[in-house]
């Protein structure tokens, strides 16, 4: 089984590589928005095709960011605890939602599939409800399995023993 710390290191190395690659891309004008022609202090994004060269790299970066977060949850849980199927399925769902968002954005940008729900583009709906709320699965794991995964009765005993040992050591001094 891969250790969480090594996974974190691998992901951070890959992220550094992806960020480093930005200097080798041509940055098209208006890539990060341009001034609104009629209204001051307001920006426009223009066409989604501005992401043509960078969307795939953005998807990889987003995937690495989500993976880093998941690996850090594993690190926080500790090497001896299995977060279980909820964590596995939650992670798959979370990464799938990010991929759906990037794919829906890319398809709309290339004019293949433009889908609006109540006026909102599909990627926005996915971001608001998917990216924002899917981590409730991980919060649920923390909340409902706290006594087993985060701080069990055995952990409590162990901690109390460590505290008692320290108190005794101080008393001896």
């Amino acid at each position, binding site marked *: 089984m891969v250790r969480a710390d090594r996974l*974190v*290191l691998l992901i*951070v190395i890959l*992220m*550094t590589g992806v*960020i480093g690659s*930005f*200097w080798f*891309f041509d940055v098209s004008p208006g*890539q*990060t*928005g341009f001034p*609104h022609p009629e*209204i001051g*202090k*307001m*920006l*426009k*994004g*223009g*066409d*989604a095709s501005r992401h043509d060269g960078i*969307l795939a790299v*953005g998807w990889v*970066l*987003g995937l690495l960011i*989500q993976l*880093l*977060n998941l690996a*850090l*949850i594993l*690190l*926080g849980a500790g090497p001896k605890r299995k977060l279980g199927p909820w964590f596995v399925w939650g992670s798959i769902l*979370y990464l799938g939602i990010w991929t759906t968002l*990037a794919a829906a*954005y890319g398809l*709309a940008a290339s004019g293949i599939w433009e889908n609006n729900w*109540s*006026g909102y*583009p599909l*990627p*926005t709906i996915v*971001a608001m409800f998917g*990216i*924002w709320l899917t*981590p*409730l699965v*991980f*919060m649920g794991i*923390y*909340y409902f399995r706290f006594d087993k995964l*985060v*701080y069990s009765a055995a*952990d*409590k005993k*162990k*901690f109390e023993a*460590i*505290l008692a040992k*320290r108190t005794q050591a101080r008393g001896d001094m």
Partner: protein
Amino acid sequence: MEEYRNIITLSFVGFYMVVCLGIGVWAMKRTSSAKDFFMAGRNVGAIVTALAVFSSSLSGFGFVGGPGLVYSMGLSSIWMIICAGIGYGVSWFLNGKRLRLFAEYFDSISLPDVVTKRYNSTAAGGLIAIAILLGVLGYLATQILAMSAVVQSILQSTQLIPEATMMACVIFSTVFLVIYCVAGGVIASLYTDLVQGTIMVFAAIGIFITTLFVFDGGPTEVVMTLFEDDHESVNAFGTFGIIGCLSWFLLFGLGGAGQPHLITKFMMTKSIEDSKKSMPLAFLTFSIAALLWISIGLVMRALVISGQHPELASADGAAPAFLQFFTHPILAGIVFAALFAAIMSTADAFLNIGSAVLVHDIPKTIIGRPLKNELQMARLATLILASIAAIFSLHTYYNSKELVGILGAFGWGTFASALVPVVAIGFNWKRATSTAACTAIIISLFLNLVLKVFGITIPFGFDGSAFAMIISTLIFLLVSYLGPQDQMDEDLEALIEI
């Protein structure tokens, strides 16, 4: 009722201030030691912890800067909000239990104190103390400046003191802030956070409902107006683009696990089990309050584009304009009180951790022990810190507008890039070494300072502080792996295994 709008606003803000002072006096009676002053006697319940974490994380920026960003850039800045789900999850998994265990075992009253003991390194603790102090000064100055701007605007609009100068408002704001923080320390701060967080939630709900009815066609008409003007503004990445938005997601999500004003709250809880209950409540309240950020920004952008409201002189004017022209006077009064609350809850948290650094951590690094009579010295340090920040904010206002902006931005970035590897990762990983911790802190200070001062940018709008966080984490991991392993006390090893 419209003619009484300004008086109503003034009354709400005045009432809120009286409540804060009352809490300060009540907290003073419960503060009898430095441990009470800095750690609330480690006796804080889950609800107070949750609301304190949420209200400290959403400063005045969430009420003014956030809607301004949506007005200016469309939905780009939602990535600073939607990262909260995973960010809170990661922060609680990494810090929730661990910091509370360490705080009790080491009997620590500050974050640098725990860092010193975890790494058995005065240098690591001292460096963290310096990083925190620098960030705190910048943050505090921005919060005092924001608070003073609100005071000035209220005094001028109500014609109570129309000639109120900025200097007078800064002095008033600082004195008010200092009174309840000096009196009640972190207990006052936490319980005012409870009131402040509650006000912020109710204000956000009220504003969100109001925004639904500004346009006859409701939110759909708002979005259609924006969509016709610029597709990208209401698309997932707004006008800023995918890379910039992802860097914000990283910095504000994972970076939250390294913010001292948030994570020190974990050290204050009554029991370790409290972190279980505080997580969902903190996330829920943050998410509700964040609705204000998104809804005001979108509606004001649509109003200006459709010609129903004149162009704004500055993007940060979006929230004040909405409150002035589209909100019921009573709700506007509540929101102004909430804005005050948001600014003050962040400022008092910084005053507390800053004074701990001055009285406890820096003396321990230099002379090997904290100052004598720590409680009185902590009160004095709070006063000194607030005064320096006030002078700093005045200097900024009258001379160099960029200085506080640089230090404010430097604060979040430095905390994220120094504390995420050293605290969030290093406290859960036995292999982490003191050399790696010191190196990561120095790198994070250096990178954040150089990037901000020299205005160095990364292509595609990738945030410099997010870049610094990744680089310092990489260096921290590599130095820990490649360097000699530290000798670790067996109790500490057992603590990390829990």
